[in-house]
């Protein structure tokens, strides 16, 4: 469960990215954060990943108030979270398998199990057989899928993605979105920030629309929807 309660975010530059944002996302939901660029989508994801802290208001993740997470606790907090970036953020000096394995290595998973889970994650994104390739030898779409495999390999309950299809052509973008949908179907809460309205219309998922740092349409949580 994610809950934003009257969250304000003002950056040191003076820009007010969020001006009193409140919404709630249930466990197991698939939610699109939309709005024009600068509307506050990225800020919301950064607050969820504890990359930024709210200036005012409170953010709850899995019933935990993030204000209570001390800097020392951030690494542990992030291990329950999968993050996908528009620019993939892969490490180019090591093969695909090592990139995907990173969260498991950090979490101290034994080597044998790491290999198994890395292969499973790569299989899920359709990249089995590319373990030994370097990220730059892959296409942009494949690199994005490596990023997704890395985000899900540690089996997080929450997956967030910032413009994951930003650099992809419509066909690849659709495939990536279907991938997120599949993870959502097995119970992972998925929050995707995107401005690609055409793409999300193909999914019957909930939308939270932002404008100028405010929620203009929070949609309806799955739990409150008429069956």
């Amino acid at each position: 469960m994610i809950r934003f309660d009257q969250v304000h975010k003002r950056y040191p530059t003076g820009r007010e990215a969020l001006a009193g944002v409140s919404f709630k996302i249930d466990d197991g939901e698939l939610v699109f954060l939309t709005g024009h660029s600068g509307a506050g989508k990225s800020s919301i994801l950064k607050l969820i990943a504890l990359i930024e802290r709210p200036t005012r208001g409170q953010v709850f993740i899995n019933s935990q108030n993030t204000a209570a997470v001390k800097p020392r606790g951030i690494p542990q907090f992030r291990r329950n979270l999968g993050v996908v970036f528009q620019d993939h953020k892969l490490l180019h000096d090591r093969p695909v398998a090592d990139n995907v394995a990173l969260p498991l290595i950090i979490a101290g998973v034994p080597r044998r199990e790491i290999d198994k889970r890395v292969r499973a994650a790569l299989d899920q994104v359709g990249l089995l057989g590319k373990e030994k390739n370097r990220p730059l030898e892959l296409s942009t779409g494949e690199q994005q899928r490596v990023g997704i495999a890395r985000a899900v390999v540690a089996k997080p309950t929450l997956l967030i993605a910032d413009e994951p299809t930003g650099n992809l052509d419509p066909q690849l973008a659709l495939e990536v979105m279907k991938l997120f949908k599949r993870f959502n179907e097995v119970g992972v809460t998925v929050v995707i920030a995107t401005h690609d309205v055409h793409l999300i219309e193909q999914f019957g998922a909930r939308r939270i629309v932002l404008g100028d740092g405010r929620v203009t349409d929070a949609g309806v949580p799955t739990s409150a929807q008429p069956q």
Partner: protein
Amino acid sequence: MNIQAYFARHAQTLVGSLGRIVNQPFATALTMGVIAVALALPLFLNLFLTNMRTATANWNDAFDLSVYMDKRASAVRVGSLAKQLRQRDDVAAVRVITAEQALAAFRDDSGFGKALDALSDNPLPDTLIVTPALPASTPQGTAALKGAIAAMADVQTVQLDSEWVKRLHAMLDILRRVVLLTGCLLGAGVVLVVGNTIRLDILNRRAEIEVMKLVGASDGFARRPFLYSGIWYGLGGGLIALLLVAVAVAVLAKPVDGLAKLYGSQFHLQGLRFTTAFDVLALAVILAWFGSWLAATRHIRGIEPT
């Protein structure tokens, strides 16, 4: 996390960091070279001092007294004084070097032959070399003997041959302190050099550290490869330092042996002992590790994903 996984992970990081520094041979050689020079210098000086001490260690006891006679004293008077001294209990032996013998020896050894010919008369006095008897070979005993001889008629000066050795040892003591201070400064230099290298390394890999932190790495985890790099730098630098000293000892051993032979000594140049070499390596690793720890702790804390 179980123990086995923990060690496996450390071993992997250790090998990984070695691979990384081997991939940058020039930069690595430069860093290790600086460490090696900084360590080799005090090490070599210390070795030099240790050898000086060994070489002069047994010069402390049984020193001779050089008794310089008044130039006006006759050969007969010199002979009788020598006889008188030989009868003393605290004297073991007396050797007479006449002015003529001294001049001849000086002519042969100094190479000033022609110049000495220009002198109208011999400037050197007759000399008695007095060896104290063993019981009197204490500093007090020789000092008392020196006083007694100096008071005798026709004696110009008495010189105790141990005085320059005392001065030498005093100088060696000062030198030892200088070496110690130099060593401390250069050790601090090693810490700073490694710290700076690691700092640059961290800045170059900023993006990687950000990604690691994003997927849940603690500062300690992100820091670990840099600490291992520091250990490799220290080990490499230490080994090169030992190599430099070994080469220096090898180059000097022959001339030193030759010099020792001229003095009728069995002295051999002593190289580094195995235990010392081990200490040096350990020290190099500790210093380099400390340098990388300082830099990594400070700079990795400052890198946060944006």
